[in-house]
């Protein structure tokens, strides 16, 4: 079996995978990072969003071997020393989650948006979330949380 090495949340990791092993499977099964979820099989729902080399991607539509040598970050890497990342904190403050299943993908997707656009409008946030489906919240508080986080992060 091929071997793959990458950095996940700042830690170097190596594992044996098959050609067909998806990045999300590698994260969940090999590394026990179960915060990244699988919500669909056609790449629409976004529950599996992680960052590869700083960009948000769907880890269910990426092979583990495609991430060879890459810097991968997942929801587990967002908080530092037990302190929530401002986006996580804003989701909590603004009730941007209910069942929590889509939440890791939402947070990772939002983090990519805010590194590209420090002050997104409501419309820009809503459009950005095109690839993240939430069935619980009606999105309203997710949008509010992301906008609040953007203000917080701008300082």
């Amino acid at each position, binding site marked *: 079996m091929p071997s793959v090495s990458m950095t996940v949340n700042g830690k170097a990791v190596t594992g044996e995978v098959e050609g067909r092993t998806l990045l999300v499977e590698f994260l969940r099964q090999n590394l026990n990072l179960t*915060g990244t979820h699988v919500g669909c099989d*056609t790449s*629409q729902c976004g529950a599996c969003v992680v960052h590869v080399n700083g960009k948000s991607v769907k880890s269910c539509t990426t092979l583990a071997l495609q991430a060879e040598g890459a810097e991968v970050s997942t929801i587990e890497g967002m908080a530092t020393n037990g302190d929530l990342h401002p986006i996580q904190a804003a989701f909590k403050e603004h009730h941007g989650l*209910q069942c*929590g*299943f889509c939440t890791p993908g939402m947070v990772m997707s939002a983090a990519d948006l805010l590194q590209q656009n420090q002050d997104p409008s409501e419309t820009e946030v809503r459009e950005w979330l095109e690839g993240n489906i939430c069935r619980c919240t*009606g999105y309203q508080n997710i949008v509010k949380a992301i906008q609040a986080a953007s203000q917080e992060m701008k300082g």
Partner: protein
Amino acid sequence: MAESGIGASVRRKEDNRFLTGKGRYTDDINRHGQAYAYFLLSPHARAKINGIDTSAAKQAPGVVGVFTAADLAADGVGGPICGWVVTQKNGEPHKSPAVSALASDRINFAGEQVAVVVAETLTQAKDAAELIEVDYDVQQAVTKMKDSLSSSAPQLHDDVPGNLCFDWEIGDKAATDAAFANAHHVTKIDILNNRLIPNAMETRAAIGDYDSGTETMTLYTTSQNPHVARLVLAAFMGLGPENKLRVVAPDVGGGFGSKIYVYRDEIVTLWAAKKLDRPVKWVADRSAAFLTDAHGRDHDTHAELAVDKDGTFLGLRVSTLANVGAHNQIFSTATPSYLYGCLLAGQYKTPAVYGEVKTVFTNTAPVDAYRGAGRPEATFVVERLVDKTARELGMDATDLRRKNFIPKDQFPYQSPCLVQYDSGDFNLLLDRAKEVIDYDGFAARRQESAARGKLRGLGLSCWIEACGLAPSAVVGALGGGVGQWESANIKFNPTGSVTVFTGSHSHGQGHETVYAQIVSDQLGVPFDSVEVVHGDTAVVPFGMGTYGSRSGPVGGGAIYKAAQKIIEKGRKVAAHLLEASAEDLEYADGTYTVAGTDRTKTLAEVAFAAYVPHNYPLDEVEPGLDETAFFDPANFTFPSGAYFAEVEVDPDTGHVTIMNMIGIDDVGTVMNPMIVHGQLHGGFAQGIGQALYEQCVYDENGQLITGSLMDYCMPRADNFPMFTTEETNQPCPHNPLGVKGCGEAGAIGSPVAMLNAVVDAIGTDIDMPATPEKVWRALQSRAQAAE
């Protein structure tokens, strides 16, 4: 209001784990040595199974077991059951065909589970499933209700003649006929309530685990009601005894009704774990979820409203066909009967109402309770019909409603449809809704849209629902198979922290927070010292679970009651510690005070003494501070609301843009406004999804052609504007917290407000979902008709 007590927007306890990826959903759990199950699903909607050859699959690499219906039958394992007997017009019970745990000799819907492969890895299980040869004798399927009822239709079940599950009625037919005979005007409408697919973001999953040493089984599963699952598995599926079966519903990623039922895959996974004596894990992929989860709605209704000259409602007549799909499930008979028919009077004092419902088996996935369950369908019928009546009479839609509202001073109000509404103030709701939407400014907004070539519409719904599914006596009298109370157990620990066990189950609703608020409020302990535990039959005494917006009114009521028991027990202990009589103690904010003195003991001190009874009147009071309560309220609760939707239609494309959506709700006491508004937003999104986007489509052969997220349109963030939600609450008089429930409200009131807005914009009736092509075609037809 305390900062963390009832009424405060306390931030959620559960959020930290969800936000950091530490939530623990079923698929996140792995048992040592687990194998993986994969189900072979029928590609046909209707077929006879002549034989299943699993020999090649059994020989495939990694396979540890391949099982079919015969294996389950040999062990006496049963299939899904119906939990509610509906008595038909003719006095007979509804037809409930037996269902096996895997399809045995007949297929009745595409996606029906035919066989299971258990293997060392999931890919090996999938590979082996391709080697199973099923000899199907494929037959013509029937997916439309009217076709299924026709005399030439194929028969789905041998013991269900004419594919009719039940023919049921509610209300007074003679009185209603008389009302119509004297009517000045009769409005008629034909309505389809579109079939929906729940699509909780976490798909269903299960892990079966068997301990041969103790002969106990554990099922980890995505359930909204683990105790009910255990009860049903033990009592009907032969997977008991109940005390040797533990069901754990860990973090669950949304339910919306679809995770109430005990499904075949869960039964089989649990059984296989015992059979193979090793843990077995199964997780539905989204494609399987589309095919096998219980769907929602799917009604075809003709309704008529008789009115007097001045718009006074005289009588309402409703005739509905409801699709049950291939076979019954737990609530599939209750949903289109009592949960639907009981709400047909709406907010109005219509004196005579008669409804009849025929439920029909078809070659489609089972249909069961989905967020709102019956009540969105009832609201849709009533509020479309009232809106159409206003148009036909040339009356303002709000004036006509107001004229017919049940006045505030007539509560409790006995509806002609069995139920007694507890409280409400419909004028207040509508007044406020009109203010918030700026009703009077609509004409100007419509003109402004017209100037840009767009069609603007405003739609209203004034709705009422029955929820807080409870009174066991009523539910039992109507045919329900179980009690509908809820339980709570509060353990006041010796060191002052509190653990609360609830039979209710959170899959997004925030129980861990709201229940802690109740306990903190009642027992005067810090919010952070209260931990709420749910979802595990091994630790929670019992429970009926979460559905029908019952967690607040019923589950919360049980917790309140248990807290009172703690206070009363503590009073005895405090009396001993304070050397006073229990009757002389006053209790407030977690502290007992001897009346008229400054002598006090806190509950924490009392608890410590109760667990360390060194000097303790054991003949008067037992040690410990641990109380359990079961709460069974006297009635359902009746939330109500007034919702407005405002839309703009692009006549060139038929595209509908939502300009505004507001809701004024009466959900009784609000325990956590932040969470209540979150529930309402989510309900709006699902309701609007039904009105504009979502549609489950089977082709004429019973193939599900909206079988993925590429064709079944789940609403996204960019479909919506910011919603406005407010409450004007009338507390519920028959539960201790005054709570009515809010989980379903948004999904009940919003679809019809949205559709009424589209109808208002385009000036002609249209079915849900109002997709661009449908709207465009409606506009074309209207233009042609005008020529």
